[in-house]
C-alpha cells in the first residue's frame, strides 16, 4: 500500500481569511441530517439543505453543521 508521492507537504487547512470558508472544505460537506447536497449562499454565509429545509450558518469561516443551530426555511 506504499504511495509514490513522498513530496507531499503537510499544510493545515485553515488558511482561511477572516470570514471566508475554505472551498476545499465546502466540497466535502453534506447535510448531516439527510446527507444530501448543500447550496452555498455566499451573501448570507449559509449552507442550505433543501431536503432538510435548514440553512446551516458559517461563522468566521467555520461551518456550524448542527441542526439545532440551523435556520429553518419557511418558504
Amino acid at each position, binding site marked *: 500500500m506504499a504511495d509514490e508521492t513522498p513530496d507531499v507537504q503537510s*499544510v493545515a*487547512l485553515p488558511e482561511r481569511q477572516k470570514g471566508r470558508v475554505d472551498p476545499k472544505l465546502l466540497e466535502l460537506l453534506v447535510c448531516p441530517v439527510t446527507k444530501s447536497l448543500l447550496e452555498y449562499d455566499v451573501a448570507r454565509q449559509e449552507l442550505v439543505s433543501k431536503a432538510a429545509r435548514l440553512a446551516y450558518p458559517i461563522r468566521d469561516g467555520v461551518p456550524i453543521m*448542527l441542526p439545532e443551530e440551523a435556520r429553518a426555511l419557511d418558504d
Partner: protein
Amino acid sequence: MSTPLLFDRAMLEVKRKRALRRFKPGADFLMHRVAEDLGERLGSVLRQFDMAVALGGVTGHIATMLRASGQTRAVIRADCLWPETVAGTGAISLPDLVCHEDVLPFAAQSLDLVVSGLTLQTVDDLPGVLIQIRRALKPDGLYLAALAGGDTLKELRESFAIAETELTGGLSPRVIPFLDVRDLGGLLQRAGFALPVTDSERLTVRYRSMLDLVADLRAMGASNPLLERSRKPIRRDLLVRTAEVYAERFSDPDGRIRATFQILSASAWAPSDTQQKPARRGSATVRLADALGTKELPTGERP
C-alpha cells in the same frame, strides 16, 4: 429500531467546555498518550493521505499530530465545540468545522483518513457512527480510532457500588458502560470495514486519593455524563465512604490508589478491490497435507 439513549449530550458539552476553560495543566495526559500512539500507528502505514479528518477529542491533539505527521495534505478538525469556546484554553488547535460526533456532515467517499481519539466512548449509537465514517471514506481509506474500553475506572465503579449499597441500599449509575475489545472488532466488521485490527492497552495511574482521581476526571471533562445519573448532588458521606472503600481495596503499600484506564485502538479500511482477501473456499490447488509434508488421515482415525 431506535437506539436507547445513554448520554446527556448537552451535559457532555457543558462538562467539556468547563474543563477547557479551567484547564489544569497535565489533565490532558491521556490525550497526549493517545495522539502519540495513533501517530505511531499512522506512521506504520506507508502511505500519504490527501484529506484527513480529526473527529472530536476536544483538545485538538489529534489534528496537531496529523498535521505534523507529514502524511496528510489537508487536515480538518471537526468537533462539537465552537472555535470561540476552545480559543484561549488548554486546547492546542481550533475546530475548522463544528458538528455532532454522531451526526456527521461528510459526503460519501470524500475522505482518505478519519482519526478519532477518546471520542466515541460517549455516543449512543456507535454502530451508526462507524457506518457513517465508513461511508465517508473513499475506497481503501483508513479509519484509526482510540477509545476508552471496558476496564476503565473499574475500581471507581466497584467502590461506588459498595459504598452506595451500604449507605442507601441502592445503586445509581456513576461510571459509563465501556466497550469490550472484542465488541469493537465485531462492530467494525458489521459497519462494513475491511481488515479491522483491534488492540487494547491498560494504563494504571496512581493518585494520592480517590478525590484527586475525581478532580482529574472533571478536569478532562469526563465526569458522569449519563442520562440516568442521579440529579442530586452527591452526598458527602457517600463520597467519603467511597474514598475509604477505594483506599481499602485498590491502594499500593505506599498508600497511593490505582486507577485503570483501558485504551482500545482500532484500524480498519474502507473496502477496495485492491485489498488482500481470503481465497474462495475450495479454490486451493495444493493439498494441505502435501504442503505440510504429512499424511492425511480420514476423520475420526488417530495416528
